């Protein structure tokens, strides 16, 4: 008696043995799994010819040389706002999808769901479906149990290894790294990524599973902010289903609901919940219960859709006997779409007008100016030439705004201002002295103009020319 009164503050994870479902949503889920995993594992192997001096991997985050490549797009570190914009775009897209279709991201696309689904599939191959797995877990240790468990875990680990392996390919040239991995010739960084991601994949998809969605994922918690009455949720039609009860063939359906309490919907649920209890935080909207229930309904020659994707508004309308309606245009979907439109067009505009040449000029802070023997004034500048093209280039630098200004480049060798070399895909840095023979006023605007010697690109930068202390 005493014992039962004791409060349990921590709860052991209840193992969920989800049964194999078959139907429309299961098919969609398989297809999405193949496509998303296919993209993940194969994308780093796509080659993309960018010409000489640059990597030919379509998707590459080159940390060593601080460049990111995505097909046509190339990003330098200072252009990180593209990635920020991309992340905002992705987040708002997710919000829009959620407000329209509910948690379809969770149910079909989220890596946690996809890998868990893959791991359950492996489990099923070696240990059988729900009932067989439950029986096997309860059975005492035997050779049969041992090899089935062993094969499952080895396969999980291999999948995890492939997963972490694919991850590092996004940051290195894939074929070269593959060769290095096979020769066990990899850096500590790469090795630690592979080990930690292998372990986390194994742990998250093999053991943590639904715990990630319920206890770790913040998105699961704040999604209710994107929901309204018109968002699609998985719902059990209480009006039609209740009162539920066992059914023997030949019995009349009069005076009872269509739910025969077969618990098929509970058995297939990867989250281990009963959808008939209503909308719950744990539900990831994967639709497995819909497939399971529809299968039973077909067997009983009843219409499908006792459990289905539905909106709260339509549930209410049905109760009141009103016409059901689908409302796509709502204030929140309009807001989300507008945000997407603005961010999308800004990004696109920026990408389309991105120049392959940039000039930056920094005026010396100390000394601000130098007076020379012949009374002329010299100012020093540091200029940076960003050659974002894939070819070594030469540039000409001129200034305007100061009459009779002379430009001199200070550096090794004999570099002239009409022939400044900058390597492909890199930044050239030069020290420039500008000397003004006749002076006008203390602070003058000076415009630096940089032109490609054999091309049409140019850029300019406005700086100051200082001639006296004040």
């Amino acid at each position, binding site marked *: *008696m005493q014992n*039962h*009164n004791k*409060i*349990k*503050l*921590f*709860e*052991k*994870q209840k193992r969920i043995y989800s049964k194999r479902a078959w139907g429309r949503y299961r098919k969609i889920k398989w297809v999405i799994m193949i496509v998303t995993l296919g993209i993940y594992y194969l994308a780093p192997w796509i080659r993309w010819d960018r010409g000489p001096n640059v990597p030919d991997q379509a998707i590459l985050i080159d940390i060593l040389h601080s460049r990111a490549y995505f097909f046509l797009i190339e990003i330098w570190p200072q252009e990180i706002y593209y990635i920020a914009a991309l992340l905002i775009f992705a987040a708002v897209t997710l919000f829009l999808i959620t407000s329209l279709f509910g948690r379809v991201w969770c149910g079909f696309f989220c890596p946690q769901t996809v890998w868990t689904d893959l791991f359950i599939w492996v489990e099923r191959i070696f240990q059988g479906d729900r009932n067989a797995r439950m029986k096997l877990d309860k059975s005492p240790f035997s050779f049969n149990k041992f090899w089935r468990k062993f094969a499952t875990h080895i396969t999980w680990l291999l999948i995890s290894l492939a997963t972490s392996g694919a991850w590092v390919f996004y940051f290195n040239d894939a074929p070269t790294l593959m060769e290095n991995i096979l020769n066990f010739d990899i850096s500590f960084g790469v090795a630690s990524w592979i080990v930690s991601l292998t372990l986390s994949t194994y742990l998250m998809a093999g053991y*943590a599973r639904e*715990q990630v969605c319920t*206890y770790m994922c913040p998105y699961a918690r704040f999604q209710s902010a994107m929901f309204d009455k018109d968002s699609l949720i998985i719902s059990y039609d209480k009006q039609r289903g209740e009162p539920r009860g066992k059914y023997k063939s030949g019995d009349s359906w009069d005076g009872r609901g269509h739910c025969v309490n077969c618990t098929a919907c509970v058995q297939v649920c990867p989250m281990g919940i009963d959808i008939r209890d209503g909308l719950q935080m744990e539900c990831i909207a994967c639709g497995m219960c819909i497939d399971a229930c529809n299968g039973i309904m077909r067997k009983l020659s009843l219409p499908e859709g006792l459990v289905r994707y539905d909106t709260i508004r339509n549930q209410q309308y049905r109760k009141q006997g009103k016409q059901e309606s689908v409302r796509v245009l709502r204030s929140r979907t309009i807001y989300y779409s507008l945000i997407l439109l603005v961010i999308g067009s800004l990004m696109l505009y920026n990408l389309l007008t991105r120049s392959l040449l940039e000039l930056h000029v920094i005026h*010396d*802070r*100390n*000394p601000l100016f*130098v*007076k*020379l*023997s*012949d*009374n002329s004034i*010299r100012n*020093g500048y540091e200029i940076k030439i960003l050659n974002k093209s894939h070819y070594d280039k030469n540039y000409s630098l001129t200034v305007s705004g100061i009459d009779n200004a002379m430009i001199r480049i*200070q*550096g*090794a*060798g004999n570099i002239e201002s009409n022939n400044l070399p900058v390597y492909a895909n890199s930044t050239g840095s030069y*020290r420039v*002295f500008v000397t003004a023979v006749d002076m006008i006023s203390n602070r003058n605007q000076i415009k630096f103009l940089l032109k490609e010697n054999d091309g049409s690109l140019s850029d300019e930068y406005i700086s100051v020319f200082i001639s006296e202390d004040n």
Partner: protein
Amino acid sequence: MSQNNKNIDELSNVETTGHEWDGIKELNNPSPRWWLWVFFLTCIWAIGYWVVYPAWPTLSGQGERGGTKGRQEWTQYKELRQQQEAILTIKAQYLAKFQNSSFKEIMNDESLYKFAIAGGRSIFKENCATCHGTGGSGSHGYPNLNDDDWIWGGSFEDIYSTIKYGVRSNHLDTKTLAMPEFSDILSKDQVSDIAEYVVNLTKGKNLPKKGIVLYKENCAYCHGDKGTGTREIGAPNLVDSIWLYGDGSKDQIISQIKHPKHGVMPYWKERLSEDAIRQLTIFVHSLGGGK
């Protein structure tokens, strides 16, 4: 039977802890047990950390900052030393080549030039900036190293020897020459006439007749007939617009003729290594006025 003993909240159907304040009951939604395990794991991790790294302060104060040393005996000082050693290894690759190259060769090799500038800049800030300023622009009595006017010459060799032996320093090979005091040799009027002459010389105006003879007799030997000075003996150019003391007004020239001021620069031969002096030479030369 046991179920009945649990306190169940009617509204949410969730077990309560049995605690109640003013009718508000505390629901008990148990946390996952692995969460507790993760907490214990972090505790174990912390203990491992204490063993490996310096962690606890002790009264005896063993480690470099006091406290337990840890198995690895890791300290930030050690890490710094390791990083400095790594830098020295990288530096050594350039140094051998740098030592065997002339100034001219260094000026034609981009990597050697950058190496010299990087080293020279930090050596300058540590040793030279006190007098010449962090930007090398000097001040009253301390030459500006950015301009094209050099008292003792602006070639690599000149700058190198000035840094190495100093000016009027106590090294045997230093540059010692200084302007004599004319207050005892010339009368007040004569000094004034020479000053007038020098002012006009600088401004390129008509030269007063009175000063010509006096200048030739007393000044031209060092400063030259045309007043352009002599770098070898440190006689400044009088016709340019750069003045070490003041702004070239007549009063200041008079005072300099009567009681000349002379700066002193220490010699750096023993304080800085040969490599450092050469790096510094290239850095000073690159400030813009190098010849």
